């Protein structure tokens, strides 16, 4: 299970303020906390700044990677910001995300083919958002085919089935859960990834809903998740789930986490 830490996003007020004031110490601290909590990638997103994203995204890359030694998930749909951010990035980043929306696809494809990177392929079509599992599978299939024919390896593709709120349509959870194994069986080697918070939009006790959804998604084969790794309860669920699915040899990750004091048991 690959974990992408989601906390460095300028839609969060403290992050936005730190980026504007150039508070690199704060940004570094948020990055370090996420890595210590188990993040494999750290997501950086400065999308709320629209025009200034071009300057802020590369700044985030430099700032974060001067404090931690892991690759980043460059979270932007702006090709210009991505090109500049990629210049400074060390190692193999993940780019989040390309989709089937024509303009986005054509503007980002040259960016991601020019670098060795992992790419998030969001199941958003030109015409609208998917509802049923079948819609997700067909958008994913077309995206995967177009990306692989542009020379991107299946293993570098992380399909995001696009999680939508169950509060609006109770079928939204199962649509994603069905789409995950179908996509992965149709394209052996391809990865799947998703965020969690959309699923619980409009509901009370959202974290409970999020972590149960994560458990179900992992059980359906999800290979990566964008989440807050410093959220103890969520990470405890993740580790227990992986262990129960036989993905944690000798239960060692689970036990290590327990001994490190990061398992929440109530």
């Amino acid at each position, binding site marked *: 299970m690959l974990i992408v830490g989601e906390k460095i996003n300028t839609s969060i007020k403290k992050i936005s303020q730190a980026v504007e004031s150039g508070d690199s110490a704060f940004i570094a601290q948020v990055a370090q906390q996420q890595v210590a909590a188990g993040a494999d990638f750290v997501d950086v997103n400065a*999308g*709320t700044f629209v025009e200034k994203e071009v300057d802020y995204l590369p700044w985030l890359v430099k700032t974060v990677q001067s404090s931690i030694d892991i690759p980043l998930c460059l979270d932007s749909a702006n090709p210009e910001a991505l090109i500049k951010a990629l210049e400074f990035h060390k190692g193999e980043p993940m780019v989040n995300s390309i989709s089937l929306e024509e303009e986005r696809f054509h503007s980002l494809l040259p960016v991601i083919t020019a670098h060795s990177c992992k790419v998030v392929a969001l199941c*958003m079509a030109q015409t*609208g958002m998917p509802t049923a599992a079948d819609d997700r599978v067909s958008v994913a299939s077309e995206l995967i085919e177009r990306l692989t024919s542009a020379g991107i390896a299946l293993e570098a593709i992380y399909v995001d089935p696009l999680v939508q709120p169950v509060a609006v349509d109770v079928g939204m959870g199962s649509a994603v859960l069905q789409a995950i194994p179908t996509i992965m069986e149709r394209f052996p080697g391809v990865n799947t990834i998703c965020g969690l918070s959309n699923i619980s939009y*409009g*509901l009370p006790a959202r974290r409970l809903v999020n972590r149960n959804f994560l458990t179900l998604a992992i059980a359906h084969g999800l290979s990566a998740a964008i989440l807050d790794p410093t959220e103890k309860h969520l990470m405890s669920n993740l580790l227990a789930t992986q262990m129960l699915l036989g993905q944690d040899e000798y239960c060692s990750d689970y036990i290590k986490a327990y001994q490190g004091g990061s398992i929440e048991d109530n």
Partner: protein
Amino acid sequence: MSYETLSDAVVKGDINTAKEETQKAVEAGDNVQDILDSGLIAAMDIVGDQFSQGLMFLPQMLHSAKTMQECVELLKPHFQEGGVTTKGKVVLGTVKGDLHDIGKNLVGMMLEGAGFSVIDLQVDVAPEAFVAKVKEEKAEIVGMSALLSTTMPAMSQTIKALVDSGIRDQVKVMIGGAPVTAKYAEEVGADAYAPDAGSAVIEAKKLLGID
């Protein structure tokens, strides 16, 4: 005429009772506009209010809206020539380049529930399309939604298009969506900002001087 049982049923999302009560009122020869206003719309006002206060949750609000829709279907055959009086016409859509429709649909549903007539242009709506529809329908309000910081500028472009076509002063502009703020609404010259579907109704009424 009081429609407490009907209103209660709509608030609770009790479709069967609500339909029965609506049918009963119609058969008793009640005024259809009265059933709509005092029974159904009054109920949705309560729902919107409770939702804004966090006392009701999204699925419950949708359940109430669905209940109301079913009742309206029963009323439709009895509408007078020319239909019923609406609170005003709203042209609604998600701005150009943006395909997110959930929030916009909720706003549309709640505005209809409150008695507005809603013309939904769906998603990825170009500024010219908003302008054309506002002209064609003589709409009082145009509502724009954007879920991406990258598509927010299309709100400003649409407002500019309304100015350029000379109809800006004939229509009120209301905007909303996750990245949108009251400050942004002010900056781009919108008339109102609605953070959620419940407040969209409140703001729409304020814009037209209702209540």
